[in-house]
């Protein structure tokens, strides 16, 4: 078994916690995980990309080979379209619906939506609304993990435990909000 995930968004959206949650859950299930990201200049409001690979066998490349990825998990809808070449035919795209408009050439909603809907397997999640409902506007990323959880080769309980472990240093309220966002996202 192997499962390759492209995580993407805009610098500052905090996607690293998502990688860590999924990787920790994989480790707890005895899987290998390998993750790769880029820091520095790109994080200043630019395109950010992270590759996360899970497998029951040792993983070689830190980067996902073109045309073989299983999932694009996007924190922003325009960015969801940027790394499609990594995806295997028919593989899924799950994206937040909330645009991050920090460039003048940002496409109009309509065009963006139709490009997303033209993909073979795309789900658009209102992660911001879920985060608000969960009581923490920063829980949107974990709402997306919830939405992705039915695709991931990981049990719900190991993801829940990974969320608890990842957010424990930030206190019980943050853990609770993220767990709620996960559950709501899973239903979305």
């Amino acid at each position, binding site marked *: 078994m192997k499962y390759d995930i492209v995580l993407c968004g*805009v*610098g*500052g959206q905090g996607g690293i916690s998502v*990688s*860590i949650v999924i*990787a*920790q859950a994989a*480790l707890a299930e005895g899987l*290998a*995980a*390998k*993750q*790769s*990201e*880029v*820091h*520095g*200049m*790109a*994080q*200043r*409001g*630019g*395109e950010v990309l992270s590759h996360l690979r899970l497998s029951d066998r040792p*993983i*070689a*490349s*830190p*980067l*996902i*080979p*073109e*045309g*073989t*990825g299983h999932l694009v998990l996007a924190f922003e809808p*325009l*960015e969801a*379209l*940027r790394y*499609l*070449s*990594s*995806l*295997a*035919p028919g*593989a899924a795209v799950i994206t937040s619906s909330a645009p991050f408009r*920090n*460039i003048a*050439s*940002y*496409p109009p909603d309509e*065009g*963006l939506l139709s*490009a997303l809907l*033209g*993909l*073979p397997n795309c789900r658009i999640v209102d992660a911001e609304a879920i985060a608000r409902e969960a009581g923490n506007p920063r829980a949107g990323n974990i709402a997306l993990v919830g939405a992705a959880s039915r695709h991931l080769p990981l049990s719900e309980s190991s993801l829940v435990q990974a969320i608890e472990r990842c957010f424990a240093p930030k206190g019980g309220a943050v853990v609770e909000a993220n767990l709620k966002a996960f559950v709501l996202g899973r239903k979305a």
Partner: protein
Amino acid sequence: MPMDILMGNEAIALGALHAGISAAFAYPGTPSTEIMESLQGFAARGPSAGPERLAAQWCANEKTAYEAALGASFAGRRACVSMKHVGLNVAADPFVNSALLRIKGGLLVVVADDPGMHSSQDEQDSRALAEFARVPCLEPSDQQEAYDMTRAAFDISERYRMPVLLRVTTRLAHGRSAVETAAPPGRNAHSKAEDRWGWTLMPHAARGLWKEVLAKYEALRSESEASAARERGDPLRAVITAGLALEYYRENEAELSGLPAGKPSHLHVDRYPMPYAAIREICATAKRVLIIEEGAPFIERYLRGILPTAIAIEGRESGEIPATGELTPDNVRPALGLGARAGQSAGAFELPRRPPQLCQGCPHLDSYTFLTEALTAYPVHSVNADIGCYTLGALPPLEAIDSVVDMGASIGMARGAAEAGLVPAVAVIGDSTFYHSGITGLVDLAAHGTSATILILDNSTTGMTGAQPTILPSERLSRIALACGVAEEHVVLLSAHKKDHEANVQAMRRELDYQGPSVVISARPCIEAMKKARKA
């Protein structure tokens, strides 16, 4: 043994801790920064005094960091210095000379290269500098090896009495995977190197030490031979990998078995000096050899030399693999005889790029706005800038700067431009970069009375690398300018706020008109650093 998912830089920090280091020094630089950040975390949880104390400190620059690490080694204790690839240029003087010293406590220099230039101004390969200095170089292929090799490096350093360079690249430094760790040994006791002529590089001593270095380097070659891993395959076709490139070879390996000739013979090089015998052996019967290495065609060039060879040598220099940028599991495929794979696409949808930009509310935006407006009065002018978030001032909509070269270059270049008659000349430099490499430029400026204006963007942090504290507090900046001899009325403090825009434009113009050296300090704390401080 405990196992955790670690970033490459965390694995290196943990390896150094478990090797029993007593001191670590660094200057922030992507992709190396998290090594020191992790070490500082360990230091904060450990004793603050006594023989078990870990000193983990940011320094003014990589050269001062390197020299501090040398001092700790001289004191008999294990020390680590970490930096990005271009940081090694700054530390080149102590680095190259330290090869000649009879190292006492193990000394590890970790250098994180940035092929693809994700957050750097070049993609130089530190293996070349290690060889230039005749310093042994270890090149891990994954996070586990990064941990293991970090620990081993201290043993090699003490056994050969040489510094050891651990070379990693972005994908390893900033990648995460599971790492198994082992119990640490004890610390070295404090014991001064009672060896004046092993540590004093006067010509008569250095001549003898240099001969020692050359002998030690050849002895180290046998270690490289022993650790180079060989796999028998097609005797006519050889593949040599180094460091992280191994992972891209492995990713494609299964498909190679399906090719008519089957899998090639394979040699993996994980350390330098170059294992000559292992390379000759793997190539003995080969008609073609492909070298897959991250960074420069370092091994490839060795093999090719300049005279014709009977064997076809393929790699980044010959063009089978792209000459620039990072390796990927895909861009090595044509060289391995494998076809491209297609993924999905967004069809005709036009995808705009999203370049990095200054944060909303960044003080640099206000500084650039007043600088640009002040300069409208001068049809000819130059703005030489520097390394940091404010480098983004080159991009639209600001397009406020004319050059960015290296840490501190803004001041030297503005001075040179002014001396060559291009005035007004402005140097734009951040507070951390000024402390790193700007002060000596200011000394030159003041010594020659050059008509140039240094605009210090003082945000009280090292922003681009994630808001590490600036080495000294901001209020010392003006005192340094005064102490160097800039006239008091031309050391000007401004506040980088929109509301002060008009006054700032006028103040800037006064200094641009002034025939002599001036320093304008535009101050306002970095908003990201303030957010980070609130969270902490």
